[in-house]
């Protein structure tokens, strides 16, 4: 595929507009649906950037994020209307974020940073050249996460295990006291 820069800019602008809607709207359900629209646009952007693996994963994970967030927000039918606005916090955060963006522009425009479309690929050259001959897997991303760097995948499985266990422990029906007797919720 040729030049993808116009499509990428369109998707990025769409994501920024969707995030503005998600942040500023008062109805919680609208905010959740706007964030899911941003997620779907992100999946299309991954497809344009040559990452079909990531696009599939982002799409199905986005559906589950939508389900979990809707379950979390269905308790109230609208947000609590913010009658007073904490002006000092908003002004301070806007100044701080302006500084952050200026710093980012300085870094991204500097000379040592690789331009968009020319990655450095010092380690990945080895993975791409020896991926198929040494692991016999045609999908190089899978051979990276499950053969060359399988230890990172073990860490990721552990983090997923711990977070799901934590969520189940918080939402448990019956609690237990220190002596081990069951206290009904």
């Amino acid at each position, binding site marked *: *595929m*040729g030049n993808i820069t116009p499509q*990428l*800019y369109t998707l990025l602008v769409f*994501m*920024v507009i969707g*995030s503005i809607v*998600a*942040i500023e709207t008062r109805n*919680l359900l609208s*905010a959740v649906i706007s*964030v899911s629209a*941003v*997620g779907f646009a*992100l999946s299309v952007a991954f497809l344009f950037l*040559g*990452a079909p*693996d*990531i696009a599939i*994963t*982002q799409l199905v*994970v986005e559906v589950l*994020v939508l389900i*979990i*967030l809707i*379950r*979390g*927000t269905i*308790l109230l039918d609208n*947000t609590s209307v*913010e009658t007073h606005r*904490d002006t000092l*916090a908003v002004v301070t955060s806007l100044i701080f974020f302006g500084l*952050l*963006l200026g710093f*980012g*522009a300085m870094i*991204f*425009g500097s000379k040592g940073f690789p331009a*968009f*479309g*020319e*990655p450095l690929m010092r380690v*990945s050259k080895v*993975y*791409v050249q020896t991926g*198929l001959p040494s692991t016999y897997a*045609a*999908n*190089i*991303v899978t051979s*990276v*996460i499950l053969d060359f*760097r399988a230890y990172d995948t073990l860490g*990721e499985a552990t983090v997923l295990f711990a*977070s*799901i266990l*934590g*969520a189940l422990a*918080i939402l448990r029906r019956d609690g237990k006291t220190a002596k081990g007797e069951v206290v009904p919720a």
Partner: protein
Amino acid sequence: MTVYFLCAVLLTMGLYCLVAKKNIVKKVIGVVIMDYAVNLYLIIVGYKRGGVAPIVERGMSASTLERFVDPLPQALVLTSIVIGLGVLALMVSMCIRLYEKHGTFDMSQISKLRG
């Protein structure tokens, strides 16, 4: 360079939503937006101009191997997306518990000290 700058704008908007909003579900939405921005930035760093997806097919010549995009950021982002889902489940379960205990989603009511 403007592509990177738009990613930074997305990250900053997520951070603003996390800090300056009072509703706890809006804070969770801010964290989700920051997650999207970071994953997008990693994949954009690895993009090669005119590149194809890093999947080898039968009878592929060695010159096509030169046109692959970078597979290493894709491996990192794959784990990052699934970890983001797990962390979101934990955050939403805490929101539900907080709502049951205090009856509201408003952080300024929840964080008041009660003697």
